[in-house]
């Protein structure tokens, strides 16, 4: 995993994501989810190219069901972009890299 991606949990979600100064793109994923593995390398590239403008975080839904259910996540992979503690963008499923960039860029 890229050093520019952080792991977040139910415990530190508020501190790391909701109170973050920079926007945070959170990847809701699980080990048993094949399509999540398709999204992973895209996030690695985004982490390297967009580091100055946002943070990228991964949340394992298996271990952190609380946060997943609080935000109504019922499909993975789901990407939520948080800015100022609020969800600004929701991307569900395997979406091409350029579409992801297009959706998040307008909030950065």
């Amino acid at each position, binding site marked *: 995993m890229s050093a520019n991606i952080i792991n977040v949990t139910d415990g530190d979600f508020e501190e790391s994501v909701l109170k973050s100064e920079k926007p945070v793109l959170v990847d809701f994923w699980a080990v048993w*989810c*094949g*399509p999540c593995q398709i*999204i992973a*390398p895209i996030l690695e590239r985004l982490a390297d190219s967009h580091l100055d403008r946002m943070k990228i975080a991964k949340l394992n839904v298996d271990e952190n069901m609380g946060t997943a259910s609080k935000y*109504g996540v*019922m*499909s993975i992979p789901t990407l939520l972009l948080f800015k100022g503690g609020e969800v600004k963008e929701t991307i569900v*499923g395997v979406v091409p*890299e350029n579409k992801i960039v297009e959706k998040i860029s307008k909030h950065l």
Partner: protein
Amino acid sequence: MIDKHDVVIIGAGPAGLAAAIYTGRARLNTLVLEKGVPGGQILQTDWIENYPGFADGISSLDLIQAFRDQAQKFGARIETEEVTSIVEQDQTWLLKGTRKDYPTRAVIIATGAGYRKLGVEGEERLTGRGVSYCATCDGAFFRDKRIAVVGGGDNALKEALFLTKFCASLKLIHRRDRFRGEKILQERVFANAKIEVLWDTIIESIQGEDRLESLQLRNVKENSTQRLEMEGLFVSIGMNPNSEFVSDLVELNEWKEIRVDSRMQTSRKGLFAAGDVTSACPEQIATAIGTGVSAALALTEYLDGMGH
């Protein structure tokens, strides 16, 4: 200097990796480009029971790892890249990727297929809010919930059976009066107390505010309608070929599958195709493998003929 490959294979699912094993052994300089991780649709199943050679079944991750190791053993390189278009360049081909371009003498398109959608009101809006296309991914979110699966092929039956591990009850909705899927899967579905089959039934629309609440159904034989309260819907009605990026380049059939001949040659010389993106593959791992091997053999002969 840009190094020119003998063959670039687009897609590292079963078809692409099988082709890579053969082109590697033919000592062709082989590059496989995969936009995500190797595996393709295999990654959406957890366990495979009908692939020959594994009487007890095999996990999808183990199988794809074995394909991948074997391709790499014979010299194929696998890189992460999404190919956005292919252009012809004096009898060879240039693949345009999101990171760079790849010149090559020949190409095998093995980009597979993605989920087909129902195309009904509410589906798009409630995707990820109760509507799902991947049981292995999302099954755990529906513990003790009332859910439905729509479809009648192998995948629909497999997903329904898998989901009974989590759900309280499951309606299997199918537009005809019999399933297309394997008989052995049908037997398991009929024997499962959690599954009720709704024959001759289509979904007309999907309702819910922030999350799925109900399905509007029509029985096409009796021409009656009903609304069914539901917390989850898994759509498993077949696949759409990932052929859009070459739709101006090669001939497609009415289902947007790439037309190939018996040697997996497309309408353009030097461009071959294999697996679920083609008109020749019935959505099975074993058949994807077969078409990948055929494409690799035909391509090897083609390059020999060019004086490679």
